[in-house]
């Protein structure tokens, strides 16, 4: 919507005067970027605020909405109650809602206004939701999933009749995920109902005429708030796409934040690094840091490792008991909230956490951050560093504690990336059919939808701007008739079409769909409770399925004995056993970012130079690894920036081929699939496959035919797509992608909470469904999406092409080390393995058996 209204001067408005008086009475003054945002907001402009956490980014949009309200209600602003929803505040984490609400309430009280601040997410009690139904608060803080739940309510359009502003907080976190797509779709609908009054029910229309009056107020401002990412302009364009405006702004806070990065060095450099193990050995150094600091956050990459760290810290330093806590996504909400509160009040000395504490909330007492293991990306590292030293002018201090010695190079790379502000982009998702299927069913559950109207709206979003008529009608066909069927023997029932209105009429289906919205977690998670009652946390089903009653495991820092599973709940009792299983949770294995990869290759280049010339300049981290690099160089080679290193090594396991592109595990997986497919055209051969962020390994029972004569051809970018799709592994990878898609697209029903039995006979696994669709319905939209996601997300096709063209311009160095090298060792011991084969299945089985019987 273009803005042709006269521009108001912020400083002349009554709203600004009242708000700045409140600032002055609190001995504060607004930041320049906040005033800039307010000016745009009162001019009804939309845009994006770029500010780090802890710098008043919330106020930049929230107070803009308040000023707007005061300006429009100069006389009665302090008395007016029940104004209807004014500001919809979208946040990715429900944990953030409480803190934001608290900050907003303080201001509202200070200004003497009557606004209510409400929140809506999975934890909102039913009574509160019903209250909101009768009277919406002026500000509603909401998660993307709950936005869709609002759209699943009857007469949802009425909620938005008074809405002036939509703010999407932490947009950088949502962008690039399917939850971001949920936000895009919900916004397109909200704008649709606020702009097209003709579509509203007559009751709504009457109401909106009474409340609104002038056309001016029908404009909804849309604001994103984002930390710095490489593609801020695009981030804004994605969010604002449904507005169809060319007149939007980016407001930058430009608040510099000094960050100090300190590496923790092991006393002795292991020449054969083994991932994960060194970290725990360095626990004493971590304790030293904790003791010398007020409050410390310890970021660990996986939930499983965080449990281990928590246990080890307590064991090595019993004094910490009671002053240290654990925080990760599978721990009971109440316990997490307690940890967060305690961080605020400063009673905790240290918290071991995962990405669960990456976002939002400021914990002022936090002085120090320890990053254990690779943060995988520059942006994440800087964000975590920023969790410390929150007061203006203070330095953020982050310690980098490697989990294997080679990771020290990453510390050097991160420092260099920080100095040149080399921050990753977040690529928006394109054409997520699963989310669209879910969204259309959501609309069908509430008031029903008309495809012609919704299609136009959906096409205004960035995600679906290229959707074709044909694709959209395939989706509507899928939800109404359920794909391939045996006509007269079919009873498929979901969305029904009555006079052109698409609607879900069955109450049971509607209820199930509502429960379903927001299920992004695909692996079945089980609740864990004490036998005597008391919720502990969540655990993945596949982990618990390997346990026998009596086995001991750790969750939320407690040692527990597994008793039994009852109706989707794991019952456990306390255990005093010294030995226990550490659960592992799937997912959350982020690949190394392209940016960090580039910096890393530069550092290896320096390592090469230093190893060959003592006088060369480099970082302390690279220097410290000298013994490792000397061994690598003597056995094989250290790749320079313009080289690709390949090692052929023979062990008793078979013939290994190690390749080191330093491009992150996902690109390595794709490269591995490509290379093995191309090798298999030379001769029928089967590989098992392992990868990490530095390289990948192909292992076979026969020599691998790669040498100087064919290396360039094997890494050529020609026929890239065809070759990858033909490689056996694309199905394997698609199968993994399909897990999420099947859940979001409504193919897997995870059961009613506490009503396990009623979902009778509807259980199936994503891998079974994948197999079924692959064999019987190849054209299924969701199946095709799985394959597309493999290309776009998994393979990161664009990045893969960049990688191949870089390799093509590099020198390929092939070595034949006599034994395992420091680079190859972590790959050799990595347990993540997959098979890649070009042989006939029957032949493979026969040969495997022959080998075993030898």
């Amino acid at each position, binding site marked *: 919507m273009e803005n042709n209204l006269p521009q108001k001067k912020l400083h002349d408005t009554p709203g600004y005067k009242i708000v700045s008086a409140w600032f002055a009475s609190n001995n504060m003054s607004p930041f320049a970027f906040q005033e800039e945002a307010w000016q745009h907001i009162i001019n009804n402009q939309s845009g994006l605020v770029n500010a780090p956490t802890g710098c008043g980014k919330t106020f930049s949009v929230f107070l803009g909405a308040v000023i707007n309200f005061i300006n429009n209600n100069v006389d009665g602003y302090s008395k007016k109650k029940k104004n209807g929803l004014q500001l919809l505040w979208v946040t990715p984490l429900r944990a953030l809602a409480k803190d934001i609400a608290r900050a907003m309430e303080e201001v509202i009280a200070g200004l003497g206004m009557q606004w209510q601040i409400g929140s809506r997410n999975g934890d909102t009690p039913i009574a509160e939701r019903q209250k909101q139904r009768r009277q919406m608060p002026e500000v509603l803080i909401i998660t993307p999933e709950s936005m869709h739940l609002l759209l699943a309510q009857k007469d949802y359009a009425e909620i938005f009749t008074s809405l002036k502003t939509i703010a999407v907080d932490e947009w950088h976190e949502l962008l690039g995920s399917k939850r971001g797509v949920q936000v895009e779709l919900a916004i397109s609908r909200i704008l649709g109902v606020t702009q097209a009054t003709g579509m509203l029910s007559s009751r709504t229309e009457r109401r909106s005429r009474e409340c609104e009056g002038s056309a001016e107020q029908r404009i909804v401002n849309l604001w994103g708030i984002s930390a710095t990412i490489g593609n801020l302009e695009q981030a804004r364009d994605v969010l604002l796409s449904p507005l169809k405006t060319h007149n939007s702004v980016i407001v930058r806070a430009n608040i510099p934040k000094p960050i100090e990065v300190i590496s923790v060095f092991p006393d002795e450099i292991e020449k054969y690094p083994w991932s994960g193990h060194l970290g725990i050995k360095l626990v004493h150094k971590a304790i030293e840091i904790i003791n010398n600091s007020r409050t410390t956050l310890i970021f660990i990459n996986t939930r499983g490792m965080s449990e281990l760290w928590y246990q080890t810290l307590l064991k090595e330093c019993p004094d910490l008991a009671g002053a240290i806590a654990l925080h990760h996504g599978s721990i009971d909400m109440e316990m997490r909230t307690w940890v967060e509160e305690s961080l605020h009040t400063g009673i905790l000395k240290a918290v071991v956490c995962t990405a669960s504490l990456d976002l939002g909330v400021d914990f002022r007492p936090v002085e120090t951050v320890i990053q254990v293991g690779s943060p995988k990306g520059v942006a994440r590292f800087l964000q975590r560093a920023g969790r410390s030293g929150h007061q203006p002018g203070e330095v953020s201090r982050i310690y980098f504690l490697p989990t294997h010695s080679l990771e020290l190079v990453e510390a050097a790379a991160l420092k260099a990336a920080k100095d040149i502000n080399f921050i990753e982009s977040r690529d928006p998702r394109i054409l997520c059919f699963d989310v669209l299927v879910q969204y259309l069913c959501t609309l069908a559950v509430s008031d029903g939808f008309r495809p012609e109207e919704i299609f136009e709206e959906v096409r205004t979003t960035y995600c679906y701007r290229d959707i074709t008529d044909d694709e959209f009608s395939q989706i509507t066909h899928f939800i109404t008739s359920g794909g391939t069927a045996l006509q007269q023997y079919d009873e*498929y029932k979901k969305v029904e079409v009555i006079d052109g209105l698409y609607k879900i009429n069955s109450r049971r289906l509607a209820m199930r769909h509502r429960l379903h919205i927001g299920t992004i977690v695909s692996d079945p998670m089980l609740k864990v409770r004490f036998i005597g009652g008391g919720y502990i946390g969540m655990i993945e089903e596949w982990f618990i399925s390997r346990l026998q009653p009596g086995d001991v495991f750790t969750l939320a820092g407690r040692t527990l004995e597994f008793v039994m599973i009852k109706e989707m709940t794991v019952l456990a009792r306390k255990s005093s056993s010294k030995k226990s299983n550490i659960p592992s949770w799937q997912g959350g294995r982020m690949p190394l970012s392209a940016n960090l990869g580039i910096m890393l290759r530069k550092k290896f280049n320096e390592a090469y130079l230093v190893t060959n010339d003592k006088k060369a300049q480099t970082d302390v981290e690279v220097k410290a690894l000298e013994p490792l690099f000397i061994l690598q160089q003597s056995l094989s080679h250290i790749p320079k920036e313009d080289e690709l290193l390949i090692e052929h090594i023979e062990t008793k396991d078979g013939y290994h081929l190690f390749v080191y592109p330093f491009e992150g595990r996902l690109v390595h997986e794709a490269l591995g699939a490509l290379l093995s497919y191309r090798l298999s055209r030379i001769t029928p051969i089967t590989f098992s496959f392992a990868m990490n962020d530095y390289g990948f390994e192909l292992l076979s029972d026969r020599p691998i035919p790669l040498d100087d004569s064919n290396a360039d051809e094997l890494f050529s970018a020609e026929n890239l797509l065809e070759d990858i799709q033909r490689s056996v592994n694309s199905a394997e990878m698609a199968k993994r992608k399909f897990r999420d898609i099947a859940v979001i697209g409504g193919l897997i029903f995870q059961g009613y909470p506490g009503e396990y039995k009623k979902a009778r*006979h509807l259980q199936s696994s994503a891998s*079974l469904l994948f197999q*079924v669709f692959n064999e019987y319905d190849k054209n299924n939209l969701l199946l095709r999406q799985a394959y597309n996601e493999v290309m776009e997300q998994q393979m990161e096709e664009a990045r893969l092409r960049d990688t191949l063209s870089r390799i093509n311009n590099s020198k390929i160095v092939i070595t034949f080390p006599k034994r395992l090298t420091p680079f190859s060792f972590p790959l050799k011991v990595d347990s993540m393995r997959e098979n890649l084969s070009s042989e006939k299945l029957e032949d493979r*089985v026969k040969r*495997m058996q022959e*080998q075993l019987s030898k």
Partner: protein
Amino acid sequence: MNASHQIKIKNQNLWLSSERCLYWEQEKALVLSDLHIGKTGHFRKAGIAVPQTIFKEDMHRLVSLIQHFSPSKLIVVGDMFHSYANKELELFTKWRGDFSSVDVKLVKGNHDILQKKWYSNAGIELFDSALTIAGFCFQHDPGECGMDEANKKKYVFSGHIHPGVTISGMGKQSLHFPCFYFTDTYCVLPAFSRFTGTVSIRPKEDDMAFAIVNNSLVRVN
């Protein structure tokens, strides 16, 4: 159609088919398990769009097996039907009419929850816990084998668990297939329906397991 593997138990000839069933020569009986008829329909009725082709092809496979072996009876060791009655079961009854000369004996599985009358109308003879013929006993859950004093000495044919087996080789390779599983006292049949997952079993030294690899059977131990 492929039934290349013949095994002998208690002097009886049993032919294993890669189409997930076995043929008992002396008794002219086709023995199968876990057909889960009506499963796709049950899912679809609940708004879960699985392709119904699986059901169609399961039925076609059954027809070709009957044409190939010309059995006088079908012995189903449970989970012949997936859940409540639906239209897919109508297609089954129509099919049943075309093969009325074949006796169908069903040992009830945990999924067989239809009314007794339904089975008799469909020409299916129902056995609540077990069926014994000669030295053989047929029952659904292998875990309950040999519980019954009278059948203790009999060899048991069962289903229920949808057995699968993992084959591993050098270079840390591994593959997973549905399988037939024989111990010295009982056998577990693979699930007949293709719309079923598998549960891994680990054959012991004296056991026999046959993996179903595409259209052939491979002895894995």
